[in-house]
């Protein structure tokens, strides 16, 4: 097995009754890579991501995450990944510090470690003064950045981001992506879904799902060349128009 590959998927499939949400997808993700996982609504992105993050059992096919098997080593996978969902994932009625302490606590971090790193994160986000404020009172962009910091607090090998920048202004999105780059530089693999095609350009490699299959997978540059398009937006539209499945 190639040590450099942190995620491998082979003919990974998920069926719900007669409906095949994910239809035999295969791909590898390398360590420290920012892997963009694109697709129209209902194409099967979230289902695929849920299988990889141990939230849902595949129907068939093979996959390993952080070197662990998705069927048998579920718990080990959970220990080694971070997850941030499209719905906002911090507790609004808890303070910033209480949120950090809670999430670090359920990953089994020691109090000493939590204390030191909390200070570091707040400083890094320029939020030292907000530590004891309720998350509810923060602007959305800050919340998202904080949620990302919390998702990688325990230094996971991989972080799964499910549409992390939905509803965020362009400036904050730019800052958010700086954080993603920084995480990748520190060796954290980033697996991200998005609907913003400019964000797709930031990814090292991009896969595009259509009707449960991966129809294209390459660097943004190569994809644009193959599809003879000037932007990722065009690439995406060319592929997504082929979809027969009705988005929900």
């Amino acid at each position, binding site marked *: 097995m190639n040590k450099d590959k942190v995620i491998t998927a082979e003919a990974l499939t998920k069926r719900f009754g007669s409906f095949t949400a994910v239809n035999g997808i295969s791909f590898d993700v390398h360590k420290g890579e920012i892997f963009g996982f694109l697709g129209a609504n209902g194409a099967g992105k979230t289902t695929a991501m849920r299988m990889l993050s141990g939230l849902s059992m595949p129907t068939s096919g093979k996959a390993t995450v952080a070197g662990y098997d998705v069927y048998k080593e579920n718990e080990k996978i959970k220990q080694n990944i971070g997850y941030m969902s*499209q719905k906002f994932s911090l507790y609004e009625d808890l303070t910033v510090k209480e949120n950090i302490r809670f999430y670090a606590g359920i990953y089994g971090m020691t109090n000493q470690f939590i204390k030191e790193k909390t200070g570091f994160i707040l400083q890094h986000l320029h939020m030292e003064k907000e530590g004891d404020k309720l998350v509810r009172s923060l602007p959305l962009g800050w919340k998202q950045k904080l949620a990302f910091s919390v998702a990688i607090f325990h230094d996971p090998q991989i972080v799964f981001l499910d549409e992390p920048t939905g509803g965020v202004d362009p400036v904050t999105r730019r800052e958010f992506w700086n954080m993603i780059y920084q995480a990748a530089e520190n060796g954290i693999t980033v697996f991200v879904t998005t609907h913003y095609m400019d964000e797709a350009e930031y990814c090292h490699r991009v896969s595009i799902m259509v009707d449960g299959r991966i129809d294209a997978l390459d660097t943004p540059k190569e994809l644009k060349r193959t599809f003879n398009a000037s932007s990722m937006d065009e690439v995406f539209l060319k592929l997504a128009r082929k979809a027969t499945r009705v988005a929900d």
Partner: protein
Amino acid sequence: MKQFSAFVKKEFHHIFRDTRTLFILLGMPIMQIIIFGFALTNEVKNSRIAVLDNSKDAATASLISELEASRYFDIEKNIYSYKDIERSFREGKIKMAVVFPQHFGEDLQHFNKAQVQLVADASDPNVANTLTNYATAVVMDYQKRITDDRQLPYAINTEMRMLYNPQLKGAYSFVPGVMAMVLMLVCTLMTAITVVREKEMGTMEILLASPIKPLKIIIAKAVPYLLLSVVNVASILLLSVFVLDVPINGSLPLLIVESILFTLTCLAFGLLISASTASQQTAMFISLTGMFLPTIMLSGFMFPIENMPLPLQWLSNVVPAKWYYLIVKDVMIKGVGFESIWKETLILAGMMFFLLTMAIKKFKIRLA
């Protein structure tokens, strides 16, 4: 363990941050005890009545003074014709009228027989019933006194003793009922909501993607509400002993252990609801109709189960509150020990295990 304590701490943060809900949770039992204890009572005191005395002799005079002396009646006014009775009722001034016919005293002396009429406002049947009973008792009392010196050929004197609750206080039956109701509300409703809220907010996904085990999540969610319930049981018991003079005749530890068992049953039901629903509104609705209404209607605390149609009697057997209510009444009022309530305890424990297993199963299915 570290995971677990972090989780429980977080739950307490949620509870203490929402001071309004906390206030309701802790204040509700106190409010209910006070309302039930002082406002809602079946005892009728100082009811206003009218007397129409057509006889005006020594016998009626002493009977009237006895009615007046009892703490149940206040004689509003004397009236002088049948027409006035009707009018007084319509005006809402009186609840009952006592009518002595002409020659009441004479009849009593010469024929050993006399009649008195009690007219009650039965638009409120319970009050009407109670009042006529009280009045009859006063009349009987008087009759007994005047016959005492004479020897009757046959006489059966009934002597009543009200066991366990000699003063027939309403508090004896509603304190156990309020305990069942409050625990039900705190545990079932609050646990159902707290788990569903995580689903609605999307934090549940993050929790499930983290290494913490679902079973730990469930238990950590239940712990704070278990503690809150113990506080509530304590405050209800303290209030009933020191404010309402309801004694705890049986063993206090037994009562507490049984309360915890009932609390766990409610928690399990709350978790089952939360595992089966997706929104807080649905969870709340199901808890209220599925748990709260049956608790009030079918636990025997408001309406006697013996008087219900058979199907409802059968249905009452699946209401956990019914068994808890029986247990609390037995331990608290009758003062019996575990040997007399082991059956009820076993049923409650069975319900708890059933509900808990269902909840955990349901929770796991969701993950797959």
